[in-house]
């Protein structure tokens, strides 16, 4: 019931978010049809605005937009005028989803074991090395990691392609570039969670019961220690799934991350609102899933 209630709450929330985005993007100076070259005649600018209803009052435009949304119509793109916003999302989202999912799996797959390892082996040299490595990945941005990986793996050694999105080989470098930062973040969170949990009373109880260290770590401590990672996963996944401007640019990947930034620069109003909505829905739904998984992992949390 709790989750149903939260789901129904999503609808008004979406309306508020879309309204905000809708108004804010129009407040920004400059419009979608401003160019370096003057429109040859004012008639043309007038006709263009009339065609896309930009000459109407904003509230009327918004009602028109919401009516379109009900029918699943996000409107036309004002920059790519032969495409609709839905066209662009349908083309780009699967690519961003694939890349995001892979990067997410990579981040968790590398981050969680590293975090556990550094917590268990606290104090010895291997722990220091692993902690340093995870800190390093957090400090170095994708803008640097990407080109460095390309230089060594693609250009020097010819192991992988430099860019584009064509075969499974093309997927590897962008996944590493996108995921490595989050792997570092996850490792740090996991380590913190593990260290805190290991001091809890039920761990002492478990040890007192005579359980092996292995059982203590993996059967009891792990479930609570992973909670910070789980709550971080929601926004992280939403971020990854909606694409990355930097990584998509470096590797020339046809995802939607590039549009996230460029659409607001070019004042492509419907595109901006469409993408904001998409991001918001993903974020809210994933956060809901995170809360749900809490109830699975932590026996103290019940949403009934």
């Amino acid at each position: 019931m709790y989750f149903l209630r939260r789901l129904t709450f999503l609808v008004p929330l979406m309306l508020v978010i879309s309204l905000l985005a809708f108004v804010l993007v129009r407040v920004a100076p400059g419009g979608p049809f401003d160019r370096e070259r003057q429109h040859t005649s004012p008639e043309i600018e007038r006709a263009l605005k009339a065609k896309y209803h930009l000459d109407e009052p904003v509230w009327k435009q918004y009602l028109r937009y919401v009516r379109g949304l009900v029918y699943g119509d996000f409107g036309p793109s004002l920059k790519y005028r032969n495409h609709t916003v839905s066209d662009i999302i349908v083309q780009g989202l699967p690519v961003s989803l694939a890349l995001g999912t892979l990067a997410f799996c990579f981040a968790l797959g590398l981050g969680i074991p590293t975090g556990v390892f550094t917590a268990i082996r606290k104090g010895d040299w291997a722990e220091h090395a692993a902690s340093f490595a995870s800190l390093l990945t957090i400090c170095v941005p994708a803008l640097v990691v990407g080109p460095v990986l390309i230089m060594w793996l693609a250009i020097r050694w010819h192991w992988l392609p430099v860019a584009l999105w064509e075969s499974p080989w093309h997927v590897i470098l962008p996944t590493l570039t996108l995921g490595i930062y989050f792997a570092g973040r996850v490792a740090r969170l996991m380590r913190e969670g593990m260290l805190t949990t290991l001091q809890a009373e039920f761990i002492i109880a478990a040890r007192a019961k005579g359980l092996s260290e292995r059982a203590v770590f993996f059967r009891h401590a792990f479930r609570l220690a992973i909670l910070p990672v789980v709550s971080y996963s929601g926004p992280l996944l939403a971020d990854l799934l909606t694409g990355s401007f930097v990584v998509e640019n470096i590797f020339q990947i046809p995802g939607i991350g590039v549009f996230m930034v460029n659409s607001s620069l070019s004042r492509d109003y419907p595109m901006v609102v469409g993408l904001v909505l998409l991001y918001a829905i993903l974020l809210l739904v994933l956060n809901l899933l995170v809360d749900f998984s809490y109830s699975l992992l932590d026996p103290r949390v019940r949403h009934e």
Partner: protein
Amino acid sequence: MNFPTAMPWNFPGMARRLLAQFGLRVAAENFTRLFPRWLFVLVLAFSVGCGIRERPADLVIINGPEPESLDPAIQTGQADGRVVGSLFEGLTRYNSVTANPEPGLAERWEISPDNRTYTFFLRTNAAWSTGEPITADDVVYSWLRLLKPETGCEYVGLLFYIKNAEAFNSHSTSDPTRVGVRALDARILRVELEGPTAFFLDLCATPTLAVVPRATIEKFGDRWLMVWPLPVSGAYQLESWRLNDKIRLRKNPRYWDAANTQSEVVDLLPCTLASTALNLYQTGAADIVWDKELVPNELLDVVLKRSDFHAFNYLGTYFFRFNVTRKPFDDPRVRKALALAINKRRLVEKFARAGESVADHYVPDGTGDYHAPAGLGYDPAEARRLLAEAGFPGGKNFPPFHYLYNANGKIHEQIALELKEMWKQELGLNLDLRKLEWKVYLTTQSKTDFDLCRSSWIGDYNDPNTFLDMFMGNNGNNRTGWKNARYDQFVREGNQQADPVAREKLLRTAEQILVKEELPIVPLYFYAGCNYWDPGKIQGISNNIRDEHPIRVIRKTAASRRIGLGETRTP
């Protein structure tokens, strides 16, 4: 304390509980049982999905930014035009070597003695890629479509040389038959012009004036380009167009000159990062990079020395505008003083560096058969004298002033800083810099809300008029507040002149007013076109001032060096 029993990383178990929570017990049971199979199917689907690769193209070109539109009426950018020009052809087309107009869909034409009436004869074998013949009515439809304001054609001005075209566009006349373009029969088209237009055949070759399929457009509206098969009039068909991924062109076998189309399948990749473009080119994933923005500035010193890098004069000028309605820039002596104090050679050698040349006049060298007049050179002593004469000796009492430029593009900031430095040093002036985001910059510029404003202009056609008419008093692109009756008259008279020699003389006089006497603008340098392709591997590209390289004549001779796993590459 409640001790958990299930292993947390037992994914099938968790999923089963999740399904069970929602009452889907049957699904839950089956899920666990079928989990290994699910996983297998997923992995298989992924690898198959990634493994399906299209046939490699015969030619891969990195084309610059993603085209905003492939509709001749809407496209504006150079990257758009290159694709549109391959899909749709006009009455004339660009010669692949010189980029001068040559017969396209029209096999010949007759020009009246007063140069005001053109009669075009369409080819008998001109046909849409879907088989129907291309008729004179198609041309009339395409041009009237451009003129209708609802189409939103930004380049509609290119048609205003046709009789009554401007009136039709501004709704002064709603009768399309009054516009000076008429189909005499299926193959003959008569065009009446407002005046003798020396560059009219050049206009007919621009992608904007290309012939488009009426039935498809009327049926599908804005999304007509996504239809397959799309009827095209040019050398290539649009096989696929995925934003930010690629445009794939396939040879149009019904094109009248299909026998000379060199490559069957051509991929055009969008790319905005110079380093990515270079990487793709370097590893053989692309054969040609032909956008001047895609030359990595940091690597220019290395790149310039390569035999596969080509730089050439281009039909564009980098300049800045004065706002002559503001004091003290209403005084030509002040404008001249600022211009004379700029060491343009330093700007070109320090920042532009890709073969750009110093601009003392406005119309780029090599435009048509035109020879521009000499402008003002670099003379700091004269600059100081003029500034003193205008009442600001040594820059004293000169009011604060600013230079407006846009934030995208490092070079604009570098030049702004250098100008500040030069004027400080030579004239004792203090320039403020104002950097604005692109769209804000555009609005500010069009409202003439600046003292000085960084600008540039790329010619629409290969004739001095595309540069000169914009500074006529009533032109929307003027944006300086400068009006000069003599200038307007020379340009207007020049364009009424049928004799090319007399015409050039008049236009030269006009330009002299612009760059030597009045200076509402200061030209800084002429753009260079740059591209890279290996002459030993690629045939059919000739560099010309329009940076126009029809795809139909380009072909690759050597085998592809496309790099993949297990393949090796010779550096």
